[in-house]
């Protein structure tokens, strides 16, 4: 199950630069690990994370196996209008996830 969260301040002034935090549940399999029975576990990582606000991309990450399991990101964006801040991610197996949080801009 794709599970993740995003956190932004509930309120901001227009043009204010605020922090977004993202946490995604994912094993970030490196491809180098083996099961107890010796079978290799194929590489499968969240390879792209994209965050949008007010119709614009504010942050995008391209990732490899060097990012920790259950990836965490904090970054900044300019609060432009009230609405959802949405983060989307996709892994090597094509599984997608999405989470969003609301911000009121005055």
């Amino acid at each position: 199950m794709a599970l993740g969260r995003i956190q932004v301040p509930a309120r901001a002034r227009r043009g204010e630069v605020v922090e977004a935090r993202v946490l995604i549940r994912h094993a970030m399999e490196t491809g180098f690990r083996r099961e107890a029975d010796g079978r290799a576990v194929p590489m499968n990582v969240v390879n792209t994370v994209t965050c949008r606000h007010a119709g614009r991309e504010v942050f995008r990450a391209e990732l490899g196996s060097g990012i920790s399991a259950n990836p965490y990101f904090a970054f900044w964006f300019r609060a432009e209008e009230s609405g959802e801040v949405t983060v989307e991610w996709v892994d090597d197996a094509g599984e997608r996830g999405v989470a969003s949080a609301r911000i009121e801009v005055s």
Partner: protein
Amino acid sequence: MRRRRFLRAAGAVLAAPALPAAAQAFLPRRDLAALVASVTGGATPSREGIALEVPALAENGNSVAFRVRVESPMTEADHVRAIHVLSERNPRERVALFHLGPASGRAEVTTRIRLAVGQRIAVVAALSGGRFRLAEAAVEVTAAACIDEGT
């Protein structure tokens, strides 16, 4: 005296490096400068206005705190376009590539990274005007005290 002996005996069996010695041998040190050059296209990056925060000593290589901050007004005319995170000794040299822009407002990214062994990490910021900035830091990784594969 007794304690010493205990610690040595227990340590010898309990302690294992983050990766077995055999695996570490397959992680040769890359030339970070060459790696940086592959990102900048040979241009010499400035070492000003960029900060990389990683611990000098990480408790466990599976999850190492990481933050990069670049000084920039983040306007249409003058902003950080991207930040490359490069590893000297991970199995894969490219750790992450962060795309930013004027909508970001501030060029700062925090995450947690994996380090297979102690090594140097480089961050290269690509600026809107075509120039680059570079910061590097060394992280030592504490040996994991428990090898509990199978638990």
